[in-house]
């Protein structure tokens, strides 16, 4: 795995207010290529707010998000033109939503779902697009006979894997995930996590994954940020944070997991 020292993403002093209510506050961190960052914390602690603000889906009240683009070097994502930002979001970035329906087009086939990003960047050869889609279906362990089937005929776990394939087809470098295993059965979760771990490693993906499930965080992330009431109260290497938590709130989180 290559991990250059040049950060891929730099978040500085990010604050998102909903009127008087804090969504997240004063968050700063850097992410390197191929690095997986877990954001953990209980419900309402600001994880999704932070993820949306980082991933250009919700402009923050304060602070900056800089990304090392392939073409123009470091750019503040909220200073880009909308066209540039949207292009970045559907090529070099990927989004895996908790609810696969939010990330899929349910009224077109699995193949069309995977091919969409390729067509969006100008691929105009049906055979090539279809081959790429078939190839990706295989990579996420879905039988290639299902290529022309609608996602609505897929199980929850398959829909989630299809969503991943649809996103990775353009070889993005940064993936945002919000509770990607939420709502799935435990055995289905395990398989998905396994697949994700393999892909992240093989493709050297940088990932920011939001989860309230510390087991998921431990399995996937290199580093963790623990959030409480919108603020990052502890961060560090995953094993360090989970095995030797410093903050009282983190200790509580970890012990409550152990009790389950």
């Amino acid at each position, binding site marked *: 795995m290559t991990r250059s020292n040049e950060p891929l993403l730099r978040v500085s002093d990010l604050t998102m207010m909903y009127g008087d209510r804090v969504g997240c506050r004063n968050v700063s961190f850097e992410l390197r290529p191929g690095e997986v960052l877990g954001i953990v914390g209980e419900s309402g602690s600001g994880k999704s707010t932070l993820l949306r603000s980082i991933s250009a889906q919700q402009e923050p009240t304060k602070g900056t998000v800089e990304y090392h683009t392939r073409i123009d070097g470091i750019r503040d994502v909220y200073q880009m033109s909308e066209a540039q930002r949207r292009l970045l979001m559907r090529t070099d970035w990927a989004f895996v939503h908790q609810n696969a329906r939010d990330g899929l087009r349910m009224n*077109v086939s699995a*193949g069309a779902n995977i*091919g*969409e*990003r390729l*067509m969006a960047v100008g691929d*105009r*050869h*049906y055979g090539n697009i*279809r081959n790429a889609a078939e190839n990706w279906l295989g990579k996420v362990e879905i039988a290639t006979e299902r290529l022309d089937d609608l996602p609505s005929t897929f199980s929850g776990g398959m829909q989630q894997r299809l969503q991943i394939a649809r996103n990775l087809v353009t070889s993005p470098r940064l993936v945002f995930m919000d509770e990607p295993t939420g709502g799935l059965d435990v055995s289905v979760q395990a398989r998905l996590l396994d697949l994700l771990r393999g892909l992240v490693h093989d493709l050297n993906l940088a990932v920011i994954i939001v989860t309230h499930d510390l087991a998921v965080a431990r399995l996937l992330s290199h580093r963790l940020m623990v959030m409480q009431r919108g603020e990052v109260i502890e961060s560090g290497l995953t094993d360090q944070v989970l095995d030797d938590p410093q903050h009282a709130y983190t200790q509580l989180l970890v012990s409550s997991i152990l009790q389950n």
Partner: protein
Amino acid sequence: MEQTVNNPAQASSAYNFAYLDEQTKRMIRRALLKAVAIPGYQVPFAGREMPMPYGWGTGGVQVTAAVIGPDDTLKVIDQGADDTTNAVSIRQFFAKTANVATTEKTAKASIIQTRHRIPEKELREDQILVYQVPIPEPLRFLEPRETETRKMHALEEYGLMHVKLYEDISRHGHIATTYAYPVMVNDRYVMDPSPTPKFDNPKMDMMAALQLFGAGREKRIYALPPYTKVKSLDFEDHPFEVQSWKDECGMCGATDSYLDEVILDDKGNRMFVCSDTDYCSERQDAGHRGPQHHDQPLGTSHSNGKAAE
């Protein structure tokens, strides 16, 4: 409703020239000018209620009302025919409210309003083709949000159009879309020529006549100025193709026109005939004959449909 007026100055009767008041016509003309300036771009306009249902082409009627003058000659077609209820009533509407001359001859018309077909006869610079459009937004079928489709047009994000064509091929083995086949206008805007059959798409490309599109229900106007590049979307390995027929026109023997299938009797006999009735009759007047022409016994099939001339 008793008096016809052919001059705005005389508009003291029940309705103004071409039904719409002058202010409304000016508003529509402004939208048309904008549409002509940005080929393929959908311009919103404050559509008016017309004395006919939306399905009857109120968008096209409003556009025609805004551009027609007393010296114009109007032709109205529906599925290529001048004699359907829809075409007849729109023609009568303008004959009555604008007192204009009407015709069924493509060559004699200065304005042609159509619901469906483009005439087979090549149109000229001094003609205007007005389309009645039911659904102007080509991206609608995959993206129902209006805010999002507008953004996609603004940013030229048209990948979704190919998703639709991809889906067509994966389901049918070929691009099965035959109507409302999307086109790229002037290398910039994707446009829906709905509900025109794709057979007519190539006629839109570099057409000499001005083409105006009006969508009544959705209150949109768009346009193709004369000699505008219009390209049907496709894939490199599935290029755009127009429909073709094995048969020729049963009446005039044409092999280059859009054919409708006509059931002749309850024994299953059928024939193909030009959908453009003016084109067909003009060919027959010129002596062209198809295998089912009435001056030949029905049912005798000719391997080469052209009768001796």
